[in-house]
């Protein structure tokens, strides 16, 4: 029960004592408003490019449209060029902090979890980001899907020590 699985969470870095890559600066809460603004722009793109549409996701998984492949592919290209430039020129944050990138380790969770998420993505037509955007557009029933996703996250945390990693 106390088996210690390294926390390999791709999106979360300030865990336990291993928070060496996290921003060390402490800011008042309203500094977070800039992330709200980035989120708003991002949410508008989600809706306007129909990325949060169940129909577009169905097209993607039936190879009936290039649209989603174009979106994800060009996002990765732009992201990769940006990361390359940040590394190459050692660009710092607006607060003058160095930007670090950590290497990711593999575990089988990326396979099993990836497959499970893929199944869910094709049923709901939404990954986690689009859930928030769909609710914003007024599709109230997506709240149920979001609550269920939170429940799924919780159950993962609960059974984490008992499933293969």
């Amino acid at each position: 029960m106390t088996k210690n699985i390294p926390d390999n969470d791709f999106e979360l870095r300030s865990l336990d004592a291993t928070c060496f890559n996290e921003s060390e600066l402490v800011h008042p809460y309203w500094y977070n408003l800039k992330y709200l603004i980035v989120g708003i722009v991002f949410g508008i793109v989600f809706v306007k490019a129909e990325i949060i549409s169940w129909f577009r996701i169905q097209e993607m998984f039936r190879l009936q449209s290039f649209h989603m492949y174009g979106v994800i592919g060009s996002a990765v290209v732009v992201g990769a060029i940006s990361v390359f430039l940040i590394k190459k020129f050692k660009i710092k944050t607006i607060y003058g902090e160095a930007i670090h990138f950590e290497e990711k380790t593999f575990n089988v969770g990326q396979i099993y979890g990836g497959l499970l998420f893929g199944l869910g993505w094709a049923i709901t037509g939404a990954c986690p980001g689009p859930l928030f955007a769909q609710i914003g557009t007024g599709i109230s029933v997506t709240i149920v899907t979001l609550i269920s996703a939170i429940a799924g996250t919780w159950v993962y945390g609960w059974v984490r020590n008992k499933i293969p990693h």
Partner: protein
Amino acid sequence: MIEWLKQPWPWYVAGPLIGLTVPALLLIGNKKFGISSSLRHICAACFPSGIHYFKYDWKKETWNLFFVGGIFFGGLIAAQLLANPQPIQVNPNLVTELKGYGITDYSQLIPTEIFNWSSLLQMKGWLLMVLGGFLVGFGTRYAGGCTSGHSITGLSNLQWPSLVATICFMAGGFIMANLILPLILR
């Protein structure tokens, strides 16, 4: 200008804008672009229940909750101010297939015939929303990221575990959309 913005945006506009989210979050605060971890923070903040996985300082990750809050407001703004009055245009083959399941309404981003409050009481709606949502929440944390954290941030940083995860996302999606979903919708 507004008329132009109201049209559906092509992939070569949307994709690069999404890609720019990666350096934007890095430059304004050394944050890694990833969305599904917000679900973990919500658990950690609201229902930690003594589970080790939810014992961390979620307040340090508040930025992520502001970010997803922004996505919510972005959806709101896009729907209120920039909505496209035309029904969504999809591949005719998909239209034919979905018609067989009784899905003909393309006015919303999701098919409202099967995604609505009353269908939750039926097996089909329950599977689509409750089971589907559960798989999204469970699978993303098991994989350690979702489309944003793995497929965009991870691949941008040339991480091969993220490539494995992305291939599995796609494989799961292909299996569901082509083999299982037709059985659910029938």
